[in-house]
């Protein structure tokens, strides 16, 4: 389709296709959706939106209206779930809006009250596209508000994570408060400490001298007991699990330092160095906050995606036969729901009316559609592909097969052993070494004097305080995770990076991971005239294979699709017969074509066998009673897959395919990727996949990585050391995975592994710097060359080095 260069859409700013340019019209649009949104915005008198947008020079694609009715938003069950009271006779709800992308959107959405009477307030959280709407239910219905948002180009969905979000918000706030208090204490103690840095500080007014020391003591104690408590909680937990981590040396150094300084303050002799204690607390809390934020961002993104799943079902009234949109939660066993073609089935149940084809890939991983008819069992989450169905509800929500699968996911995530991180392993030995050395230092110097012994031992503890050690990993990881996110790789936990840095076992799902996950024309035997006939005929019918034929022919077939007039009738069992230009034709499976009395020559018979040998679905085209072409349909392997698999194998990864698809198909894919037949397993149920992953994780010293997309992979993703969900995956797999990709392509796996290796290099560098620093300063402390004050001044230098190294590093190709 040609696009005229000059004309830009007045709504979204994209070029307008030449065919749609209307020379007389005042405004030009690239599509009807933009036109509708433009008119809605103008109609509401909100055209200043465009002025703001121009100022921002924003050219990203705008939302489109969906034209949904949102009836289910008015249902009682919906209200129970999502609507909350907001003061006198008012209600509030949080909606997740699609296609919020710039400051102009904030402006537009927050002016909703001017457009819809009864909307009291709208506040948008831009970062997460969540709008909180307060409205008066007496004046306006929620569905009206939702329809208005939709017409402005922001299709909306109820936000499902309100409860967890509230918990997290409280968590976030207390975290911030802790940082604030620790910071205030540290800064004030630091200012006071400047007074003592003067070599003549002993000549200070004695009242002030004591007051300063007591004030420092008070502030540090406050910082230690309130924000610093988290380290003791962490240290206690680590003590109980007998696994030392960073909190143990921190808690130890803080306690010893505190006790010693408090004694000096009370006795009124010796030096104090509260500033370093309070600075340690402050800096380490910041390190934790960074780590926390980084994990939170990916979790948030997943939750928002989960809000996109349909919440409504079309319930059929048993008496009148009327269809009404209701929330899935309002359905009960025995109800009947209508499922239109293209919709996913909302419940587990039995088909009572209609016959269609079902994409059960979400549960089985099988890419071929399954025909279903009356009395067949259907499961929630599967997609109805071709014709309308009426389903009698047997189970909803958690009682469905997919619901039970999700419980399995949660369980396997819980059972997964915790990752022992490099920094924690080091901390384990570090604690032992430092405590041992401190005891040795004390023991050595006690022969000189008690005073010196304590002084040097405490200096050692202060100077080796694992501040930089504690920051080394989180900083390197956050820097990488941020850059990975820009490249469409969302990483939920920092431990993923450490796990992926070593080669291990890579388990790949087939459908949607190694393949595109949809039917395409892969093989063709015959002339182009037959192709044109096939295209024209399949356009006339609705069947999943027909849709695949049309799509892939339109993409590849360059001949003009002239209006070839065909007369088609569809037969049960997936065959077509008809007339074209006076001559009869027939299209379908070899069996169907034979039944229609068409002759299949040896040549075409061989072509059919060839197609079957490649695990493709053969379709024969016959004209005038004789076969003239053979097409092979299947789910093709991604172009980049063989090269990437080969590279990973060279680097020591063991690659296997585990799929729910037919073993023959899996073997065919494996052969194309150069994998041995024993490494390609097919016909696996979700439970089998989980079992395979658990076995692998239990036995192996190397990481087990699972890559998948469907809900059938979710449990396995959760059980693997690292679960990776690829683009377009079911939301269940997103929630279970540690990493997910927001863009398509297998090369993301390559980037993820490369990036992880680079990040691990930075982490090692950081740990090396901080340990090396500790070694030098520790030696000086043991030798009695530096005093606690100098140690406190030196301490932040290693932290600064680590910060610089982390942010200057180039991981994830940035």
């Amino acid at each position, binding site marked *: 389709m040609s696009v005229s260069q000059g004309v830009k859409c007045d709504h979204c700013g994209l070029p307008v296709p030449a065919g749609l340019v209307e020379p007389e019209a005042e405004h030009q649009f690239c599509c009807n959706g933009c036109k509708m949104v433009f008119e809605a915005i103008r109609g*509401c*008198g*909100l*055209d*200043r939106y465009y*002025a*703001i947008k121009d*100022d921002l020079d924003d050219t990203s694609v705008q939302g489109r209206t969906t034209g949904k009715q949102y009836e289910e938003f008015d249902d009682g069950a919906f209200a129970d779930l999502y609507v909350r009271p907001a003061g006198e006779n008012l209600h509030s709800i949080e909606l997740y809006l699609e296609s919020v992308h710039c*400051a102009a959107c*904030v*402006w537009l959405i*927050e*002016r909703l009250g*001017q457009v819809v009477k009864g909307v009291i307030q709208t*506040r*948008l*959280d*831009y*970062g997460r596209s969540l709008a909180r709407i307060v409205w008066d239910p007496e004046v306006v219905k929620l569905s009206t508000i939702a329809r208005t948002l939709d017409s402005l180009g922001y299709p909306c969905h109820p936000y499902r994570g309100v409860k967890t979000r509230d918990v997290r*918000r409280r968590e*976030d*706030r207390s975290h*911030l*408060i802790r940082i*604030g*208090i620790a910071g*205030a204490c540290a800064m*004030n103690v630091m200012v006071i400490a400047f007074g003592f840095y003067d070599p003549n500080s002993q000549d200070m*007014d004695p*009242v*002030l001298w004591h*007051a*300063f020391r007591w*004030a420092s003591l008070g502030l540090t104690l406050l910082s230690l007991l309130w924000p610093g408590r988290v380290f003791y909680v962490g240290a206690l937990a680590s003590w109980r699990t007998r696994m030392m981590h960073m909190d143990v040396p921190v808690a130890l150094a803080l306690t010893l330092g505190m006790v010693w300084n408090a004694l000096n303050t009370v006795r009124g002799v010796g030096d104090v160095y509260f500033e370093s204690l309070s600075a340690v607390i402050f800096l380490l809390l910041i390190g934790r906050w960074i780590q926390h934020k980084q994990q939170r961002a990916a979790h948030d993104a997943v939750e928002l995606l989960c809000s996109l799943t349909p919440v409504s079902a079309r319930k059929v009234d048993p008496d009148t036969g009327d269809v009404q949109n209701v929330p899935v939660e309002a359905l009960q066993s025995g109800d009947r729901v209508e499922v239109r073609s293209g919709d996913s089935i909302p419940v587990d149940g039995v088909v009572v009316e209609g016959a269609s084809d079902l994409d059960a890939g979400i549960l089985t991983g099988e890419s071929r559609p399954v025909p279903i008819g009356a009395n067949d069992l259907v499961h929630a989450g599967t997609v109805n592909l071709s014709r309308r169905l009426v389903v009698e509800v047997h189970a909803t929500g958690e009682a469905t097969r997919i619901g039970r699968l999700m419980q399995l996911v949660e369980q396997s995530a819980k059972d997964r052993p915790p990752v022992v991180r490099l920094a924690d392993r080091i901390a384990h030995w570090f604690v032992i070494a430092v405590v041992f050395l401190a005891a040795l230092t004390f023991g050595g110097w006690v022969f000189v004097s008690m005073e010196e012994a304590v002084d040097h031992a405490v200096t050692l503890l202060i100077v080796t305080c694992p501040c930089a050690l504690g920051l080394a990993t989180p900083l390197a990881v956050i820097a990488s995770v941020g850059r990975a996110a820009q490249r469409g790789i969302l990483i939920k936990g920092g431990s993923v990076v450490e796990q992926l840095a070593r080669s291990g076992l890579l388990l790949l799902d087939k459908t949607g991971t190694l393949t595109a996950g949809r039917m395409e024309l892969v093989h063709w035997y015959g002339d182009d005239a037959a192709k044109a006939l096939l295209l024209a005929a399949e356009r006339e019918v609705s069947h999943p294979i027909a849709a695949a034929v049309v799509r892939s022919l339109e993409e590849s077939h360059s001949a003009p699709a002239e209006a070839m007039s065909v007369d088609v009738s569809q037969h049960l069992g997936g065959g077509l017969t008809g007339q074209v230009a006076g001559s009869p034709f027939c299209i379908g499976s070899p069996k169907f074509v034979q039944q229609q009395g068409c002759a299949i020559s040896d040549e075409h018979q061989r072509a059919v066998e060839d197609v079957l040998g490649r695990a493709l679905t053969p379709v024969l085209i016959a004209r005038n009673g004789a076969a003239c072409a053979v097409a092979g349909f299947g789910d093709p392997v991604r172009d980049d897959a063989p090269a990437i698999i080969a590279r990973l194998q060279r680097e020591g990864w063991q690659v296997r395919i585990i799929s729910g698809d037919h073993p023959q198909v899996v073997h065919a894919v494996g052969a194309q990727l150069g994998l041995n037949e024993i490494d390609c397993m097919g016909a696996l149920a979700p439970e089998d996949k989980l079992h395979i992953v658990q076995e692998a994780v239990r036995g192996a010293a190397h990481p087990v990585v699972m890559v998948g997309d469907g809900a059938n992979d979710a449990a396995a993703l959760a059980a693997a050391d690292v679960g990776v969900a690829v683009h377009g995956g079911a939301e269940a797999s997103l929630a279970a995975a540690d990493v997910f990709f927001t863009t398509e392509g297998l090369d993301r796996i390559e980037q993820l592994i490369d990036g992880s290796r680079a990040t691990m290099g930075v982490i090692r560098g950081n740990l090396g710097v901080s340990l090396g620093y500790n070694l030098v300063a520790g030696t000086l402390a043991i030798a009695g060359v530096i005093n606690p004050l100098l140690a406190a001044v030196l301490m932040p230098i290693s932290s600064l080095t680590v910060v610089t190294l982390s942010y200057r590093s180039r991981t994830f190709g940035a």
Partner: protein
Amino acid sequence: LTVPALYIVFPLALVIAAVAVIAYIWATRSGQFDDLDTPGMRMLHDEDDGPSGKSGN
């Protein structure tokens, strides 16, 4: 000597710091740090200047 001034200034400094910390805690608890992106954009828009609006700001 200037020392006695510190007798007043030092406690005063601590009190001011305490006030700042309390203000910070209040701000955090009332949710002012929950969303750090949107308010920055909101302030770019002039307060309501009528439905028809003037262009440019």
